[in-house]
């Protein structure tokens, strides 16, 4: 008997797949399709990376690693924070994950009680709210628009925060808009979360170089002021590369 869990009613498929399927069909008929629906970079994986992976496979490095990742990779990430951002994040606090989505799975598994409510922006990346729902959390939408550059503000946060709210999830850059939060904006949101004793996971799929110093400040300040650091920083998306790649810097120019 087909009887899926009730949560499945709240988890939607990607509607764009219908268009993708049609696009492929048109291509097979010889039409030239320009793909601007694809939400992933077109660049190939850098050769140094593919070579390293192939070498690992050929030399039998294909067994389990530690659950939080290869110690040397966690060290490399820690060194990257130090060198690029001038901030000390010990390797012990870094978890290597199956993409940023894997990290978000772990974060919500760790923080979301059944029925707990979490604030997310609408529009937003649908998987964020669906992952939350899969762990029996309840997404609460904050409708956002051009007035706030499609990001939440302290005013919106106070307006939507209820006694039952557990936390806020922010994304910078946000999908589908590509908008960023400044350090001041992030701090102001964090202040409200602290005041409400809420959690504050951030999805920073991609970053930007201009954020470097600010990011440094942010991490430093948070370490100083937040005793138990409610901040989970989910980094780098599904792509170590893209994180730097698409986003670390130049895209900052205000239009």
């Amino acid at each position: 008997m087909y009887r899926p869990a009730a949560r499945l009613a709240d988890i939607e498929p990607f509607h764009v797949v219908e268009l993708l399927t049609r696009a492929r069909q048109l291509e097979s008929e010889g039409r030239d399709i320009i793909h601007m629906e694809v939400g992933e970079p077109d660049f190939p994986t850098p050769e140094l990376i593919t070579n390293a992976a192939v070498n690992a496979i050929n030399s039998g490095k294909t067994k389990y690693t530690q659950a939080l990742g290869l110690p040397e990779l966690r060290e490399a990430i820690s060194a990257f924070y130090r060198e690029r951002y001038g901030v000390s994040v010990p390797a012990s606090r870094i978890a290597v994950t199956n993409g940023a989505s894997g990290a978000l799975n772990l974060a919500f598994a760790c923080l979301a009680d059944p029925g707990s409510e979490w604030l997310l922006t609408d529009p937003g990346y649908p998987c964020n709210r669906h992952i939350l729902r899969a762990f029996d959390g309840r997404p609460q939408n904050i409708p956002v628009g051009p007035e706030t550059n499609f990001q939440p503000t302290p005013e919106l946060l106070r307006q939507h925060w209820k006694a039952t709210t557990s936390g806020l999830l922010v994304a910078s850059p946000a999908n589908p808009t590509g908008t960023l939060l400044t350090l001041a904006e992030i701090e102001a949101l964090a202040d409200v979360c602290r005041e409400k004793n809420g959690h504050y996971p951030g999805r920073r799929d991609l970053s930007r170089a201009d954020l470097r110093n600010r990011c440094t400040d942010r991490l430093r300040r948070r370490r100083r002021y937040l005793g138990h650091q409610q901040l989970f920083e989910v980094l780098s998306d599904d792509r170590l590369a893209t994180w730097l790649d698409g986003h670390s810097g130049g895209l900052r120019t205000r239009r």
Partner: protein
Amino acid sequence: MTGWRLGWMVIPEAYVRDVEKLAQNLTLCPSTPAQYGALAAFEPETIALLESRRAEFRRRRDFLAPALEGIGFRITARPEGAFYLYCDSSALAEDSFTLAKDLLEKTGVAATPGLDFGSNEPEKHIRFAYTTGVDRLAEAVERLSRYFGR
């Protein structure tokens, strides 16, 4: 390198043990070959290459945004990261899902309607990703201009 499925998370100190327990039970570990590949992602040579790709994304955005606005799409968000433009298409079409289908059929340009991103006026929005070279983006702009008679 999206298909490698690798990212990371910075965990608050107090939660490290909890996340480790969860990771042990939910995934055991991230893909091992992918992790060895990722070690090379932090080499200066790789980082220099990635920086040049970031610059290319900026170039594409700076080309595409004004071009789409010239056609009649409104870009009300300031796109400063990632690789897409979320456009208000309400001056051009009533429903962006139908618009996306029409654009695909009649111009061969595939874009993502707002429907996938929530319930806040999705019918008024469409997302164009600049995940293809400037020459192809220019071709898309030309086709769209013709389609809307601009």
